[in-house]
């Protein structure tokens, strides 16, 4: 596991250094320029995409094949990706927290809850598809599922542009944090099963 995490760290430093740079710049903009609200959310969504990016590199460079010759199980390989994603995400959120506290951001608790939840959503949904069908097919499947989800939600809300009154204010944003964390854990277990099936 240590070796897998180290490999992902090297790949992040070498392949994703521009991503890291922009994520840091956007993060700082988001903290210190309150009018640029989008920069509060965009960088967390970008950093959360790291595991998918690394998985794409592994497939392209056939590391996924080589890893099967090592004393590394499918479950360990999948866990490595989720763990690395979680570590990077936690480190980035911690950095943002320090910056926000230094800047004295108002209602930072709510902002943190939004950042935490939104960032985890994409990998939690996307990764199982990528582990099951490969990165390319997985992305397409993800787009289809997301499209179907939004299509269904439009049908169910009968085209209303606003969130139904029943739901509005029913859930505090903080409540999303454990839900999203649980979704990430469920996604991890589903990915282990999916990856095992793909290799069967």
């Amino acid at each position: 596991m240590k070796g897998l995490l180290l490999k992902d760290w090297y790949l992040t430093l070498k392949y994703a250094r521009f991503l890291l740079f922009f994520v840091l710049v956007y993060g700082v903009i988001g903290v210190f320029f309150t009018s640029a609200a989008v920069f509060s959310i965009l960088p967390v969504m970008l950093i959360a995409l790291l595991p998918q990016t690394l998985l794409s590199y592994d497939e392209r460079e056939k590391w996924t094949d080589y890893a099967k010759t090592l004393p590394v199980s499918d479950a360990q390989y999948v866990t490595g990706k989720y763990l690395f994603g979680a570590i990077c995400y936690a480190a980035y959120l911690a950095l943002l927290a320090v910056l926000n506290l230094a800047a004295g951001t108002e209602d930072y608790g709510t902002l943190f809850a939004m950042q935490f939840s939104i960032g985890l959503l994409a990998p939690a949904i996307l990764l199982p598809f990528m582990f099951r069908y490969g990165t390319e097919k997985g992305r397409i499947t993800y787009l289809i599922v997301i499209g179907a989800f939004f299509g269904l939600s439009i049908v169910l809300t009968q085209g209303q542009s606003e969130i139904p009154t029943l739901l509005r204010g029913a859930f505090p944003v903080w409540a999303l944090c454990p839900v999203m964390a649980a979704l990430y854990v469920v996604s991890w277990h589903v990915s282990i099963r999916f990856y095992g099936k793909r290799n069967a």
Partner: protein
Amino acid sequence: MNALELKQIQKSYGDFTLGPFDLAIPSGCILGLVGENGAGKTTTIKLILDMIGRDGGTVRIFDRDNRESFPAGREEIGVVLDEVSFSACLNTKEIGRIMAGVYRSWDQTAYEGYLKRFALPEKKPFKDYSLGMKKKLGIAVALSHNARLLILDEPTGGLDPLARDEVVELFSEFTRDEGHAVLISSHIVSDLEKLCDYIAFLHRGRLLLCEEKDRLYEEYGVFRCSPEDFAALEPSAVVGKRETPYGIEALLRRDGAPRGAELGRVDIEELFVLMAKEAK
């Protein structure tokens, strides 16, 4: 004890079926897997490593089922795949650190020794390596975690004759330890002939033979003769034949050859080609 033992191993891919067949490598020995492209050599290796699901049979490595002993059992196996696949941006130093985190039995001193022996640069990224350098790095990693069994898929492909000779010598050194064994597949049959104790022929998914190399020389010979002489041969003694402008080259079992017939020594490549042609 057998280092590797396949029993009734089988795998189907729609229009291609591998096996079922048995195969074993005693400890201290090198087995060469010979076969044309698509014969099933890589599939066999993937089945041994459980990289793909099998349709039947068992694989035992050092007397333990390969699935039951996974993943710890992998510590004992050094693998070089047909395509050595480290991340393109990594250099040998980083690969060494990664492998130290993957293998409990990683031997950094041995790794550095092989890097030196193969003259592999420390800081050059993997993507800038030649095909031969990539193979050498794959071999260096495979030999640096105290493996007892090496599984090598075309390890000498892309190497120049000098480097091939060096690598062949290295594998030979490896099996001087009686507890070690090597399974090697290669198109370069001359390398296998130099190196192997046992030879196995795979043809279209079927195992045509698996025999001690020296016994192959003892059992088979090439009989160069006219079509008339060929027609007079005992059919059960004929394993294969090739027609040439000068007559017929028949591959014969020595014990079925006509009395007094002079049989030439068969080389492994010739033996495989003649047997595979006959098996069509």
